[in-house]
């Protein structure tokens, strides 16, 4: 009987090991299953296989640690020329790189190959809040910076924190270190805190609030895209309310630095094909993502700009020296 158990134990161990064994193309999700990076890897990997861009199913590996820093350093130090490796990335990746949160790693140690969708930034208040528009909220903060506390799903200095600061900067309010922010466990938690009245506003991504819109518990003050988001046409943009801000949490990939240029271009073509597929369009619609396709060298250039901008803002709020 002890043999049975030992066999069961060893088969469990084998299961654990096979779950991480490699196939042809590997996508590293730098976080545990769940959340944006895991979603990106699984969806993109599945669609690449379904539409015939790759011959074998894409193997998704979860390599969680240091908010993506562990995966980043693994790629840079150990797999810097692996042509069959892509890593899920998002605005959080570039924000942390810009803030030197990856233990000295910098954005130019990998190649950002493409974004294929974006989760628009939103600012939300409870339905019974006195603030009817983004302008009301900004005016209140200008009058008394302590009167509004934001809750968001990222740590202090993270992308959710930077979003309202960008709006306030655009409104000419410079004393941004006075703005209160708490980072909680994800967008849904941030909404709970806001609806519960513990914080006055929630800053997050569109996908985090779609489930709450039909309940009538919240009011979306603004979405931070250039145009209103398809499917959510009644939500005004920050831009049309007079705040020239674009903040989208893009979803995309980076690849190792030392792959050939041909390989880099091939990745770009593959991602473009995924972006155009009907499956991806559906996945985006289901998850509150807005179209945002930028691949190859063009994307790399855009990322460089975003990193520089984030670095400047972070320096100002004192997240980095």
């Amino acid at each position, binding site marked *: 009987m002890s043999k049975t158990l030992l066999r069961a134990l060893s088969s469990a161990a084998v299961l654990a090991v096979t779950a991480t064994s490699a196939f042809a193309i590997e996508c590293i999700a730098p976080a545990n299953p769940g959340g944006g990076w895991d979603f990106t890897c*699984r969806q993109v990997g599945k669609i690449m296989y379904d539409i015939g861009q790759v011959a074998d199913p894409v193997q998704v590996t979860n390599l969680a640690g240091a908010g993506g820093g562990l995966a980043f350093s693994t790629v840079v130090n150990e797999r810097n020329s692996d042509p069959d490796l892509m890593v899920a990335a998002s605005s959080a990746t570039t924000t942390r790189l810009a803030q030197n949160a990856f233990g000295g790693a910098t954005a130019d140690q990998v190649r950002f190959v493409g974004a294929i969708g974006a989760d628009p930034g939103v600012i939300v208040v409870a339905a019974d809040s006195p603030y009817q528009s983004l302008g009301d909220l900004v005016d209140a903060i200008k009058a008394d910076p302590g009167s509004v506390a934001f809750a968001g799903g990222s740590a202090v200095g993270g992308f959710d924190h930077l979003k309202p600061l960008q709006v306030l900067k655009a409104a000419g309010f410079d004393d941004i270190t006075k703005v209160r922010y708490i980072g909680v466990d994800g967008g849904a938690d941030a909404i709970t805190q806001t609806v519960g009245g513990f914080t006055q506003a929630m800053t997050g991504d569109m996908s985090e609030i779609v*489930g709450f819109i039909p309940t009538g518990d919240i009011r979306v003050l603004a979405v931070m895209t250039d145009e209103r988001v398809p499917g959510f046409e009644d939500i005004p943009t920050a831009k049309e309310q007079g705040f020239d801000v674009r903040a989208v949490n893009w979803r995309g990939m980076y690849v190792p630095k030392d792959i050939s240029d041909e390989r880099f271009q091939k990745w770009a073509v593959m991602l473009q094909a995924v972006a155009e597929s009907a499956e991806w369009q559906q996945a985006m619609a289901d998850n509150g993502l807005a179209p945002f396709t930028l691949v190859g060298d063009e994307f790399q250039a855009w990322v460089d700009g975003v990193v520089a901008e984030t670095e400047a803002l972070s320096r100002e709020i004192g997240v980095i020296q």
Partner: protein
Amino acid sequence: MADLLANLSLGFGIALSPYTLLLAIIGCFIGTIVGALPGLGPANGVAIMIPITFSMGLDATGALILLTAIYYGAMYGGRISSILLNIPGDEPAMMTTLDGYPMAKAGRAGDALVISGFASFVGAFLATLGLAVLAPALSRIAYEFGPAEYFALYLLAFCTLGGIASNNQAKAALASCLGIGIAMIGLDPNSGLPRMTGGNLHLYDGIDFLVAIVGLFAVSEVFFFIESKGKSGAAGIKLRGRVTVPWAEIWTTRWTMIRCSVVGFIAGVLPGAGASLGSFMTYMMEKSIAGEKGKFGTGVAKGIAAPEVGNNAAAGGALVPMLTLGVPGSGTTAVLLAVLVTLNITPGPTLFVERPDVVWSLIASLLIANFVLLAMNVPMVKVFVKVLEVPPAILMPGVTMVSFVGIYSLTGSYFDLLLVVLFGVLGYVLRKLDIPTVPVILGILLGSKMEKQLRDAMVLSDGDWTYLFSSTISSVLIVAAIVGFILPIFLRGRIRKPQRISD
């Protein structure tokens, strides 16, 4: 009521197909094993199974049934190694070691497993019913808990730690402070800057409590075993006679089970509290209700039933905020939430209305899984008891080796293995000094959450400490915490502490 029955029949209609039944049985079996292995908890078990689920091409309902069956199975399975080896299979099963192991050592391993298996069933069953009946209404509770309230809740947990697992409050307090200290390692929750990491990226996420559990319990046990030159050690338990169901003893725990189901369920419903807090609170509650005569810590039925009911009820309760708000109530539900999102199901207030097929087939399959697990864990309990007949010299290193594989498979880094050994040394030293190790784990588990809530409260109030008393809920919890900490100190002279804890 008619609604509920109609919904349940919809759910059972989907869940009772032979295919989904098979999935539930497979899930329960894998879950029980994963739970029983130190180093692999429910969250990891579910996470490891996700890729397999996707490669099987399961639909949303099938995937959910498989994964939640693993979840419930792991909650059951965690108790097995707690009772037989004094090594918790996962963190919610930690409290089960306190009475489960002494009972097993007294030659009643079979009884301990049956009682705890039955208790797991009651807790999980009542919690699943609670989930079916109360979920939409209970989701509002989360809106009542802000940083101040959560801080008060964790404070209550820590302040009542003193009486746990040790006759010496100071040593328990020291151990929990040690745990809180270890919890400080990693990224500062408010600024995102690394603290006490020495620049090591592996430490940025802090120290996983599974690493600590395996080190403090399993590895230190091996050290003790070596020290005694193989003569003693955890596995020196003899099973006498055949395994029977101690009905009379189970019956004496009926009120314990009902009380603990309610408390555990509520602990689960609160996002962020989770199963560990559930089993901890129920054990402490029953210990204080039973008083000195209850002989908690010496291997009594109530001491085994309470934490098992508590953690299984909390497992069910944790599904409430996950399904109704999209806020995970525990590590495992965070993983399940991720699965839902990947399957294009958006958890949230509208899930019950928009996807009744998913919700009710999930609830139905949880009920089914529960009966499967009862069958696996009570009549088949002999299978697990037989483990004890493996000579300790093989069993102890074997368990340790499997835990090492489990830990390695989580992070794929040797660094965690080094940490496990370090924690093993720490555990050995602590136990030599008669300092309990359970509060260390609780400190690691809850310390960082408590810190985060306190600091959020301070940000919101601009550093005004009276904010912590700004609501009735937080005030009541804080007063209870202070009383819970101070009272035993004054009572110490008056009450005798007869029991000695065999660790």
